[in-house]
């Protein structure tokens, strides 16, 4: 009986064991944890940073090819099935799951940081640096992240809805592993997915907590000690654990939709009260530059000057999206049942990307407008404390206090909904793909997410968060390449059979 339990719960026990070991190391010997993680991280970056660039472009190419090929008409579900959600509801949930906290955190600060600290071949604070900053903000948050999500979500959706297998990453490996997906090899794939999800989500939660803290400090002069950030994580943990345990799925859905509406209102507010033509010009010009330079941007690692910059930004982002992809992929797959592959891929790649471009044009563009046209030095604020830039930006708009409060509220809700969904997804991944997750697993995964975020913040702050995202993503990137292969096999077999 004990043996049977060990066999059944091996993914849970193995992944929980690894995470627990990591947490214990962070608490009892943080120096050793830092040494180990920074060594692995440096090794990955030194030898494989190019691989992240090539992989991300390959995922994009593969997604588009699948959508436009003869496979595009295959439905993610049975032939007669209809989509479960309305188009707007579906897109809103896609967006909330895929970006959420990150977009609020980086919307103002990323363009400002590129403007302040561009690669060595550009002059800081120059108009060229501004154009470069906007283009790279579009690039990092553009079509590539969604292509990464597409690979995982499409694979899971196809193999579970169309082929009737459990909603697990290992299910997608059946064409290469066969019945070994039920053995050690398959379990290892699921453990890698859990590992990437925990560190990817913890990174986002860390960002969210830092910014909520910065907002409170900015508004109410709260202490900037790390203990306050930890306190915020603890409170948010209580909220999302309660939500996950009580199973308020409908409430979470409603909150996600409200969040998107609030974010859109905020966006329109800044667009109307800022220099609207300037923002729209930035959008148009950056969009053109992005399309024109897409191939160059995709493969550009600036090996002769700016290599460090590319590693710190582009490689970090690609790794972060990859580490988020098991969680977001599972979520997107679940809400996309009944749609055709073409509709799924083209919508996922285009609609959220376009919204993100508008978001960056409005927030980043307005911040650059203040910098270049009004002489407001926001970039140095972002340079000193990246989480503070948004609140400093709001000071130049009416009702800045209210705007800051709304953003803090948005962050808290995104934090709670993301962590809640991640807890459920982790529970499902470690329960053989079942959506009925025992409460003890929800508790363990919820606590793990928060504890990992706290440990990372204590050991190295923002750098540690970024470092772990890159490290956790590396093995999963290889898993994703294999996913492309198995998906291709599955789709080819289905089409061949239909054509016979």
């Amino acid at each position: 009986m004990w043996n049977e339990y060990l066999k059944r719960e091996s993914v849970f026990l193995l992944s929980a064991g690894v995470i627990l070991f990591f947490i214990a190391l962070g608490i009892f010997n943080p120096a050793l944890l830092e040494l180990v993680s920074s060594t692995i991280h440096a090794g990955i970056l030194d030898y494989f940073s190019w691989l992240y660039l090539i992989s991300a472009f390959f995922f994009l190419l593969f997604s588009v090819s699948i959508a436009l090929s003869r496979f595009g008409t295959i439905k993610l579900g049975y032939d007669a099935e209809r989509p479960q959600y309305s188009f707007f509801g579906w897109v809103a949930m896609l967006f909330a799951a895929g970006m959420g906290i990150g977009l609020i955190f980086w919307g103002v600060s990323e363009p400002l940081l590129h403007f302040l600290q561009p690669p060595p071949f550009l002059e800081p604070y120059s108009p060229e640096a501004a154009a470069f900053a906007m283009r790279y903000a579009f690039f990092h948050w553009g079509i590539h992240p969604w292509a990464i999500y597409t690979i995982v979500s499409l694979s899971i959706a196809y193999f579970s809805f169309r082929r009737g297998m459990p909603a697990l990453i290992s299910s997608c490996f059946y064409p290469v592993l066969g019945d070994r997906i039920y053995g050690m090899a398959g379990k290892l794939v699921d453990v890698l997915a859990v590992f990437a999800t925990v560190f990817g989500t913890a990174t986002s939660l860390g960002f969210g907590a830092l910014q909520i803290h910065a907002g409170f400090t900015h508004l109410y002069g709260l202490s900037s000690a790390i203990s306050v950030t930890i306190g915020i994580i603890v409170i948010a943990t209580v909220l999302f654990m309660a939500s996950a345990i009580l199973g308020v799925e409908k409430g979470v859905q409603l909150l996600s939709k409200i969040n998107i509406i609030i974010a859109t209102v905020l966006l329109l507010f800044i667009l109307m009260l800022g220099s609207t033509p300037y923002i729209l010009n930035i959008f148009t010009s950056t969009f053109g530059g992005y399309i024109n330079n897409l191939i160059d941007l995709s493969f550009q690692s600036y090996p002769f000057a700016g290599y460090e910059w590319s590693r710190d930004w582009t490689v970090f982002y690609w790794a972060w999206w990859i580490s988020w992809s098991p969680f977001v992929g599972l979520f997107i797959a679940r809400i996309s049942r009944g749609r055709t592959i073409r509709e799924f891929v083209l919508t996922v790649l285009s609609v959220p990307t376009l919204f993100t471009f508008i978001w960056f044009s409005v927030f980043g563009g307005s911040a650059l407008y203040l910098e270049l046209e009004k002489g407001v030095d926001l970039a140095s604020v972002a340079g000193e404390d990246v989480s503070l830039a948004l609140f400093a930006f709001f000071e130049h708009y009416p009702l800045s206090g209210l705007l800051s409060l709304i953003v803090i509220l948005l962050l808290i809700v995104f934090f709670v909904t993301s962590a809640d969904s991640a807890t459920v997804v982790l529970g499902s991944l470690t329960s053989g793909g079942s959506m009925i997750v025992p409460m003890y697993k929800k508790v363990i995964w919820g606590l793990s997410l928060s504890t990992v975020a706290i440990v990372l913040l204590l050991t190295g702050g923002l750098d540690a968060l970024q470092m772990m995202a890159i490290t956790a993503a590396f093995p999963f990137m290889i898993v994703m390449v294999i996913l492309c292969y198995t998906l291709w096999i599955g789709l080819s077999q289905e089409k061949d059979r239909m054509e016979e």
Partner: protein
Amino acid sequence: MFEKTLIPVSYGERPEELRKIGKILMSLGSKSICLYHVIEAGSLFRGSDISWLTILQEILKELGLEVEVRLGSDHIASAIAEAALQEGVDEIYMRTKRHWHLRTVLLGSVSRDILRLSDVPVLVHKVRPKLPDVGGVITRDDLIILYATDFAEASVRPIPYLMDFKGAWCHILHVRGRMADPFAEEIEKRRLQEKLMALEVELRPYYGRVTSEQKIGDPASGVLHVSDQISADIIVLGRKKPAFFSAPMGETAERIVTSSRASIFLVP
């Protein structure tokens, strides 16, 4: 079906070896041989004495075979393929050459071109079956045939030849990629099992023993592995129409022909 065989020969062909080849072909049912020599346009031996061909002819005649000698020119492989059609032969026989003291399993470019261009079946003699010693004979009773099939049109064409080979054992092998889910896999396995059983029944009158097997994996590697496992003498394959990007005679056939230690009988 193997009554008339075309053997491409070149200067330096060893008479003793040709005698052994003649014995093997006789054991397979050959009664008539066409020795075919191509003289290339820029060859140093152009216009030289070709009495060596008469010696080869006599050796085969001694075995009781009908032998005719034909000469051709221009591109070697094209000339051989064309002659095979004109002479109405049933097969082309090619022996892989020795390289120093190693009996290589690799093919030369001419052999590869013949395999690609020929409209009649080609028997490429490799390490197995061994050529009989002086005075020794090869009989069909020892012959182990491996028939690799994917049940596509190209794989069906060798079946009449398989019936003609006869022999001790015919092992039918189907190697494929795994299906995308366990349910589809089970259905496919059952479907193929039925087809393999039907083929076994069809071939049983011609062999002492007929068995079949289905494997999952890379077809070329699977065929080569099983061929070595059962010490197959001849691998019988159908030649597929190559895809645009693939190797000239089809990816799988190309790899099997290149790497196999067993002889290959490739049916176009």
